[in-house]
């Protein structure tokens, strides 16, 4: 490959990364600005973090969002794994095309449509059978599960389609009944993608504004909803502090995950030397 092109390519790559990260960096920098204004640097200060940690509205909204996200992620991986198993293992069955469409449509559907549709469903249900009487935690979680499961399905499906079924056959041949095969063989091997799916569903739920706004009710305000109402009025340094905290937590998690994976690699590589056969 000639020398010049990689240079151009990597410049573009660098520009792309700069584009992605400059806003994030600006958030972090200004979270430490003691002045409210972006134009003036009032000196280094952590006062916004202090205010943030005493802001009950944000804290209770964060707590609600975390609970919803956890519930959502857990149910989504169950639903998503079932859907992925269906698509990968069960070949052709009646209604497969419809199923496959339904599973992948939420991936791209605009939020506003999903939000409106979910709300109208809940209202109709309340009208017909009296439940859900109140909109809030439950309705948000249900709406989130529907679209999170679609993402989980994609992740698990990709792993399952690469899965070597002869491992399951061998386990059955050695005397394990099908449910034990699933618990002892299939599940441990696909566990990493289940974890990835869980994290994905968790993040999507934590981040959702539109759908939660539609299906929520009085008293149930999620973190994005609080952030949104703050930022509509302009720049709010507490939000910067919040942003910095989120970025820090996520980065630490990713670094930790990377470190754990690297350590596993090292262990593997330093195994005692293989004797020739």
């Amino acid at each position, binding site marked *: 490959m000639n020398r010049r*092109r*990689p240079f151009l*390519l990597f410049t*573009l*790559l660098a520009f*792309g990364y700069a*584009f*992605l*990260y400059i*806003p994030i960096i*600006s*958030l972090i920098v200004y979270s430490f600005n003691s002045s409210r204004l*972006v*134009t003036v640097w009032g000196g280094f200060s952590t006062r916004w973090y202090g205010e943030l940690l005493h802001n009950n509205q944000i804290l209770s909204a964060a707590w609600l969002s975390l609970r919803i996200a956890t519930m959502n992620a857990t149910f989504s991986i169950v*639903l998503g794994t079932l859907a992925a198993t269906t*698509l990968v293992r*069960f070949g052709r*069955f009646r*209604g497969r095309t419809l*199923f*496959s469409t339904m*599973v*992948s449509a939420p*991936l*791209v*559907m*605009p*939020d*506003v449509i999903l939000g409106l*549709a979910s709300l*109208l*469903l809940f209202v109709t249900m309340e009208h017909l059978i009296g439940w859900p009487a109140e909109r809030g935690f439950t309705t948000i979680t249900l709406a989130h599960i*529907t679209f999170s*499961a679609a993402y989980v399905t994609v992740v698990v499906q*990709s792993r399952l389609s*690469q899965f070597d079924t002869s491992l399951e056959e061998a386990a059955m041949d050695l005397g394990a*009944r*099908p*449910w*034990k095969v*699933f618990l002892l063989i299939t599940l441990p091997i696909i566990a990493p993608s289940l974890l990835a799916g869980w*994290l994905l569903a968790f993040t999507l739920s934590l*981040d959702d*504004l*539109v759908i939660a*706004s539609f299906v929520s009710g009085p008293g149930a305000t999620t973190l*994005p909803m609080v*952030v*949104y109402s703050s*930022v*509509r009025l302009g*720049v709010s340094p507490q*939000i*910067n502090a919040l*942003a910095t905290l*989120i*970025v820090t937590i996520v*980065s630490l998690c*990713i670094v930790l995950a*990377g470190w754990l994976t690297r350590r596993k690699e090292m262990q593997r590589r330093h195994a005692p030397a293989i004797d020739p056969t």
Partner: protein
Amino acid sequence: MNPWSAINGSLHSAGKWLGDLLTGHQGRRLVIALPYLWLLVFFILPFVIVLKISLAEVLLARPPYSPLWQFLEDSTVQIQLHLENYRRLWEDPLYTIAYLKSLRIAGISALLCLLLGYPMAYAIARSRDSLRNLLLMLIILPFWTSFLIRVYAWIGILKSNGLLNNLLLYLRVIDHPLNLLHTDFAVYLGIVYSYLPFMVLPLYATLSRMDLTLLEAAADLGCRPWKAFLKVTLPLSLPGIMAGCMLVFIPAVGEFVIPDLLGGPDSLMIGKVLWTEFFSNRDWPAASAVAVVMLLLLVVPLTLFQRAQQKSEGETPR
């Protein structure tokens, strides 16, 4: 008998029964049925309801719309379909402009994402193994941080006394601050910024799966690198391009947050129209009608996306 072992034993047999149920022939039906039913109830049914309500009339009631059918006294059922909402969509230019604008903004944004994202994906796919994981992680990391907050970050950068303007003034590139916030430009910027990972990742997936020996064969047969790219790499990466474009275009059409925070009064997108109809005007039937027409407009892109998904379902990565 020890109660613990009794409990243990019964749990064991319950698990066995459940497991055999789930993996037997009947079990297969159960595994399919659970997600199927969920999706029918929580995904398909809502859309049917949206359609139904788009044909209703707005009322000051709970719920704030007229019922579709009513049972009258002499054993008759009266079905009322109000096409008022659709007529308004058709006649009021506000809606048409918003739809067309949304399509245009989403389309151009997808194109911009492609122009920026393809080289990035290509560079990552061709990079050294040791570097590649780091690069991928750097693409994904912004995705894990709040989308809303990252859009908010642009407010601080683009506003009149924001970062960008201050920098340009300081460097004496401009005399007075540029009006960047609350313009179409800001909306494009916001969409490309937020959706870039959605373009890079499927492209990367396709490009990394590509067999590099094909390029070697092309070179061996006398093809210059640029031509090899156009004739070999580009066509083979078409499924990834299609998936990436649809992953950006379709949700961008109905995008609300970005035009709301970064856009101006004349960058009205259809997502915002729907939101306003619902929250400000409390006109659920009108909002529903807007949603139905939006869905109709998206049928073709949705089908294209479906095709690309199914094609990639059949591929096994090497």
